[in-house]
């Protein structure tokens, strides 16, 4: 079983996000970047499949030079090799343009399944996985929390999280899956793993190597356009309700009914 993992480098979830004064983006100074948490589940699952069935786990990312660190993290966890789409022309890609570029690379790779995170925690699109499946004419299953592979029959049986429960879904391979928390517990990279990762392949792919036109990638190839970034609506300062405990509670209930009108 050859598994491809599409992953993304994102700001750590503890990052305080500041918007540039002109609203054109966020301030990226001092941001600590990590592998997207949902992509960690994808990498871990790929490694488990490889350990069980043999084959390769190959990581693919699109991003600037720093994104190589996310690939190294996955390689240190145990992935075999990686591909890095890196070109100024790829910048500003929306979900459509990102999936298109990833699909173009994946077409040239042998694979039995593709794993993605359910969404990246920066743009929160949750679009690239299903969109990639469409570009590759493959089925997809989103939000998986369990994956069982039948290698002989080239089938997978997965559990996915839906509102108020779960669905058990069967799908023919190859297919694209997006990984949700609960699928597994991602391993930490070991020290020997980190050492080995330094020697593993990170294959750079620029626009020329990708084989798409400049108008098909990045902001130019995107279908959506971000007009501006805006801060979240500010909340008026709240009330701390002090006094005897029972009075506090009675006052809180009164405020929620009469002032906030939410109960």
């Amino acid at each position, binding site marked *: 079983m050859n598994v491809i993992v599409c992953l993304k480098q994102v700001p750590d*979830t503890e990052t305080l996000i500041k918007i540039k004064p002109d609203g054109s983006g966020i301030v990226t100074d001092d941001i600590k970047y990590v592998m997207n948490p949902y992509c960690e589940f994808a990498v871990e699952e790929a490694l488990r499949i490889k350990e069980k069935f043999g084959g390769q786990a190959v990581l693919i990312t699109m991003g600037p030079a720093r994104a190589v660190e996310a690939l190294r993290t996955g390689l240190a966890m145990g992935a075999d090799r990686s591909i890095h789409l890196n070109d100024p022309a790829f910048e500003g890609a929306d979900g459509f343009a990102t999936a298109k570029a990833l699909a173009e690379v994946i077409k040239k790779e042998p694979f039995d399944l593709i794993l993605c995170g359910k969404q990246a925690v920066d743009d*929160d*699109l949750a679009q690239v996985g299903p969109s990639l499946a*469409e570009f590759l004419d493959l089925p997809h299953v989103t939000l998986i929390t369990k994956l069982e592979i039948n290698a002989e029959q080239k089938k997978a049986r997965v559990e996915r999280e839906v509102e108020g429960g779960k669905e*058990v879904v*069967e799908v023919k391979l190859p297919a694209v899956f997006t990984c949700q928390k609960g699928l597994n517990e991602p391993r930490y990279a070991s020290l020997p793993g980190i050492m080995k990762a330094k020697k593993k392949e990170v294959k750079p792919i620029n626009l020329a190597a990708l084989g798409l036109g400049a108008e098909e990638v990045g902001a130019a190839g995107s279908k959506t356009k971000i007009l501006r970034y*805006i801060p979240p609506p500010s909340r008026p300062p709240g009330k701390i*309700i002090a006094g005897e*405990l029972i009075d506090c509670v009675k006052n809180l209930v009164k405020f929620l009914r009469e002032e*906030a009108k939410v109960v």
Partner: protein
Amino acid sequence: MGKGIWVFAEVKEGNIRKVTFELLSQGKKMAEKLGEELVAVLLGSGIEGLTGRLAEYADKVYFVDDPILAQYTTDPYATIITNLLKEHQPSIFLCGATVLGKDLSPRLATRLQTGLATDCTGLSLNEEGLLLAKRPVYAGKAFIEVVCPNSRPQMASVRPNVLPMVPPESGKKGEVIKVEAKVDSSSLRTAIVEVVKTAGAKVDLTEAEIIVSGGRGMKGAENFKILEELADVLHATVGASRAAVDSGWRDHADQVGQTGKVVTPNLYIACGISGAIQHLAGMGSSKVIVAINKDPDAPIFQKADYGIVEDLFKVVPLLTEEFKKLLSES
């Protein structure tokens, strides 16, 4: 460029979901402004009886009633809707940012080679008549405004509970049009073999009007019982912080925050939650926030509309009693 605002009508357990009517309410306003028609599209099995409620809002209702559509799977839904959208070329297509909507909409957008804004919290029309979609990024630490300038339809999935619902026009009765499924069952690549409902599941966190949530201060799985009791009285759903989920006290499906659910209830009651940035991002768009925490310096109080600095184990049972009294009176 196309005409018409289309709304995907989502069915769950035999009923049209509330988010559909929220979209129709918003779609109606935009349709009037653009001078275009409002269209609902409904897929399912045995759903013809549901078309009437949609026709109270929409000028036209297209429905496809076929056993193959009884449960949502991507392939038949994507194929049928793509065909309808290609035939009628609307300017805008909207669906709920539900599990279904988030599975379907990227497929449709890619197949139709158009732009999609996912998980939106606001929709409007700009001065050029383009759909201006507002959506959170970084789990709500910032928002962006997005347009789809050159391709059609302009697509958006919108979160439940964020668009105001208006009652339908009295006496309105849109045209109801039956469409054949024409789907080859051998083309279906995924099959649902089982659906498992979570025991005692109430409204999903993403749709809940009231959420009672617990964090590290809950000190153990068994103590969530007091939050369940409060939630029962308020018909609320119980959520949890990442700390509580990572400690194994609650299922990961209950997690609120940047690596869990992003929620927008009318009332969010945070109990023993300090308010890590990643949690605040996930619940910061709640209409009213109550924080109960014994640490007066907990960051959650910065976001809260009402705070009580006290041990949650003392406050929550009293709160449950007070709400019981209040709600039995009214």
